[in-house]
């Protein structure tokens, strides 16, 4: 696979190293001359100096034959533009973009850039997952595949406490995949019983969170839960 990486910061550099190690062909575009000079001895012909939002620079990198573009600069507007151009002008089959500020996630979504990675959002999810009390945590979102993984608390008053998996009927588009108990995961086999204070992992289609919260946590208002768990908690 040939991958064009825009931005040779820590993210871009390590992505390039890993892909090279896996046997893929990469080229990394960096516009800061100091950073370029620093990395040139290691990356050699795999490094290109220039503004990766300029069409001629992307063409010089060989974007026309790229199988994938990774827009991982420190500027979200640049990552948006690189992603849009890669799809629009050269029809690059796969585009991955880094979201620096979680508040810009909505813009990536709006403009159809569906494969995004946001370190801050991931970190928040992981921290919430480690907190002693958490009711609902979105763990992973694969928008291009139209699927999300979420974690839900099973409270004492949950209608599913003390019930077996086979007796639980969830709406279409929701799949209960595992039970987390005492820090260990049990696959959700039909005979398994859900206990109070367990957590369950569900796969679902995006947009079904509200429905799921309503079923699992009937005493909670979905708006309150989302407010506590979404990236809205991050403000500058």
């Amino acid at each position, binding site marked *: 696979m040939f991958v064009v990486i825009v931005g040779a910061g820590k993210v871009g550099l390590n992505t390039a190293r890993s892909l090279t190690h896996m046997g893929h062909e990469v080229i990394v575009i960096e516009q800061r001359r100091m950073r370029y000079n620093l990395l040139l001895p290691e990356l050699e012909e795999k490094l290109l100096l220039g503004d990766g*939002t300029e069409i*001629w620079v992307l063409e010089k990198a060989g974007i026309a034959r790229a199988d994938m573009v990774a827009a991982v600069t420190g*500027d979200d*507007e640049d990552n948006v*533009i690189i992603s*849009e*151009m890669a799809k629009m002008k050269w029809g690059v089959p796969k585009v991955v973009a880094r979201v620096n500020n979680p508040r810009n996630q909505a*813009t990536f979504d*709006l*403009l159809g850039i569906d494969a995004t990675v946001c370190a801050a959002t991931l970190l928040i999810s992981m921290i919430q997952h480690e907190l002693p009390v958490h009711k609902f945590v979105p763990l992973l979102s694969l928008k291009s595949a139209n699927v999300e993984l979420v974690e839900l608390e099973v409270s004492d008053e949950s209608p599913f406490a003390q019930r077996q998996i086979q007796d639980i009927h969830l709406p279409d588009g929701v799949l209960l995949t595992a039970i987390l108990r005492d820090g260990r995961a049990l696959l959700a086999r039909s005979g398994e019983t859900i206990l109070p204070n367990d957590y369950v992992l569900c796969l679902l289609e995006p947009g079904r969170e509200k429905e799921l919260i309503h079923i699992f946590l009937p005493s909670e208002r979905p708006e309150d839960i989302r407010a506590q768990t979404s990236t809205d908690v991050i403000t500058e």
Partner: protein
Amino acid sequence: MYVIIAGCGRVGSGMARQLVAEGHEVAIIDENPDSFELLGDDFPARFVTGQAIEWDDLRKAGIEGADAFVAATDGDNTNIVSAQIAQREFEVKCAVARVFDPYRAELFSSAGIRCVCPTQDAKLLLLDAVRSCGLPQAGR
């Protein structure tokens, strides 16, 4: 009409002054509040210190219900992205972006974003100016 201008530089502030003189309402967004001094203390506009691509800052400027949005910050990419947000999320009928790079201006124009390219315009005007000097024709 109600117009939001992102970027209070020479172009943004100049447009604001012209629009207000014509009786229109104006809001201006800039990340640097010092830039508002270009318009003086008593200038009748809404000033928002913030980012042109931040939805909340756009809301503060009153983008919900604005008639027009002009992206004239010093960043081409910021301008193209914010004009798309105005057009697609907030359904502003008239969203325009200033884009210095002629190639990006052409590409995003073809994707339905109204771009104004000062570089392209300057090139044509300068060519006209040279031609109007009445110099000898090509081919000796």
